[in-house]
């Protein structure tokens, strides 16, 4: 289980309605059912992963979140979760807007491209960084819209999204991101976790 799942779960209130966008094998969904007794649905693009979710008894829709989020009515979920997939969308801006339309709140996690190891990799090796959270080569990576924690904070401000909670993850330990420590968190953390509202 990804370490961020516990933190995501802590952001979610009991017995709420949750949509997990890009739910993969449904591990977060199962965890949320166990921890928070939520009514959770998933969307997953991979056929085998979607079928795997069905075998676990999870309610899942095979589909492409880029276009299939349209079918959900406004405010139909308490939370919409997007765990480390924003960077893979063609149009992340549109996707975030969709998340905030469907969900009263959205939880978005991003691999932080501003993490010092990534910066160092590019600085010293001069090639596109390959890390544990970003294991693909430049030519086969699904991650076409990578950003830093700082980028995401600026993006949210520009779009007037309210960041109800911003967390940075370092060595699997979360800490709060504030305006005055933004530069440090952007350098020291490998993952950003944001609870967003419109």
């Amino acid at each position, binding site marked *: 289980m990804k370490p961020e799942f516990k933190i995501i779960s802590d952001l979610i209130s009991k017995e709420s*309605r949750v949509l997990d966008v890009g739910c993969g094998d449904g591990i977060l969904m199962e965890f949320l059912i166990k921890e928070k007794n939520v009514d959770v649905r998933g969307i997953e693009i991979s*056929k085998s992963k*979607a*079928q795997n979710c*069905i*075998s*676990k*008894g*999870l*309610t*899942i*829709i*095979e*589909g492409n979140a880029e276009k299939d989020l349209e*079918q*959900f*009515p406004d405010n*139909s979920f308490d939370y919409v979760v997007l765990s480390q997939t924003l960077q893979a969308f063609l149009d992340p801006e549109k996707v975030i807007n969709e998340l905030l339309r469907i969900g009263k709140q959205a939880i978005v996690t991003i691999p932080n491209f501003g993490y010092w190891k990534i910066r160092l990799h590019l600085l010293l090796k001069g090639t596109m960084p390959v890390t544990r959270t970003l294991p693909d080569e430049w030519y086969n990576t699904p991650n076409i819209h990578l950003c830093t924690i700082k980028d995401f904070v600026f993006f949210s401000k520009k779009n007037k999204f309210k960041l109800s909670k911003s967390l940075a993850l370092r060595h699997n330990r979360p800490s709060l991101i504030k305006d005055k420590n933004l530069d440090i968190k952007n350098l020291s953390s490998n993952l950003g976790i944001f609870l967003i509202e419109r």
Partner: protein
Amino acid sequence: MNAIEKLKTLLIDKPLKLDCGQTISDFPLAYETYGSLNENKDNAILIFHALTGDQFVTGSNPVTNKDGWWSFAVGPNKAIDTNKYFVICANVIGGCMGSFGPSHENPKTKKIYGTDFPVITINDMVNAQINLLDFFKIKKLFSVVGGSMGGMQVLQFVSNYPDRTKTAVPIACTSSHSAQNIAFNELGRQAIAADHNWLDGKYTSKNIVPDKGLAVARMAAHITYLSKKGLQEKFGRKLQERDDLKFGFDADFQIESYLRYQGSVFVDRFDANSYLYITRAMDYFDLAKQYNGNLSNAFKKTKAKFFIISFTSDWLYPTQENKDIVIALNAIGANVGFVEIESDKGHDSFLLDVPDFLKTLKNFLDKSYTEI
């Protein structure tokens, strides 16, 4: 005909008002069951058959002596596990495997109905079959399952009887017959009507059958059940028991011979007038129209858990039409899952040994059953 007379039949004395305006009563509904109903009566699955199916889902069909139409999916330890579930399947009204249909005698005129049989709809089929639940004293089914026209019945069932099933599995179907669907059905009907043995539907009285027309109808329909890729891989341009083209109109190609065979075996087991009536019922199916153009409203009253399955190569009821049902359900926050199964076998995939499909169906049912 002897085998037909021995079929299990429920005589429905409750009058049924059909969509066409006529009311029928004291009519037979032929059905079959598999597995056993448990004490709580909460393990029953009602399976709806497709256009040319019947109540003999699995095992051996005593009339045709062939395997049941869904033997890949239904049976002990199979996707629909008859060790666990009590499976019920009825022949649709309008059909020709014992249920009230155009080959029955009209008690008023003492003549075979033929085309005097009332036009029936998917709604009528489902309303006839609800009597089976009352007969078995089942308050709530565990599931309703069906592919193609069977899937349409699943959708209609849940909208008519929102509290009478816990889960619903419409497979490779649509909520509304498209112009293309209607076009292919019309082609089949016209092929039957063009057969001079059809006699405006009165062929039975002359002891003949419009077998040529019905065979052509089946051939045309059969093509729509397969994918281009599937056909190409299976037949390509392979020749039928010959080394070269014969420059004539015999079946030179294997695909021609295959289709002719499919047509010829079909006429032995299916009634031409039933084919007209059932295709008509499919064409009339438009669930959204029943709810003022809003498909979501068809499902507003149900708490059933839906699982919708489509197939990549199905161009008769393509994924998008299945997804439209998913969208309508999501629009009202219903509990709906959906997968599209990869298969080259076209619309027929749901009847065939497609392991991903059978495994996923089994997983859904068995997991949902443990939640009861």
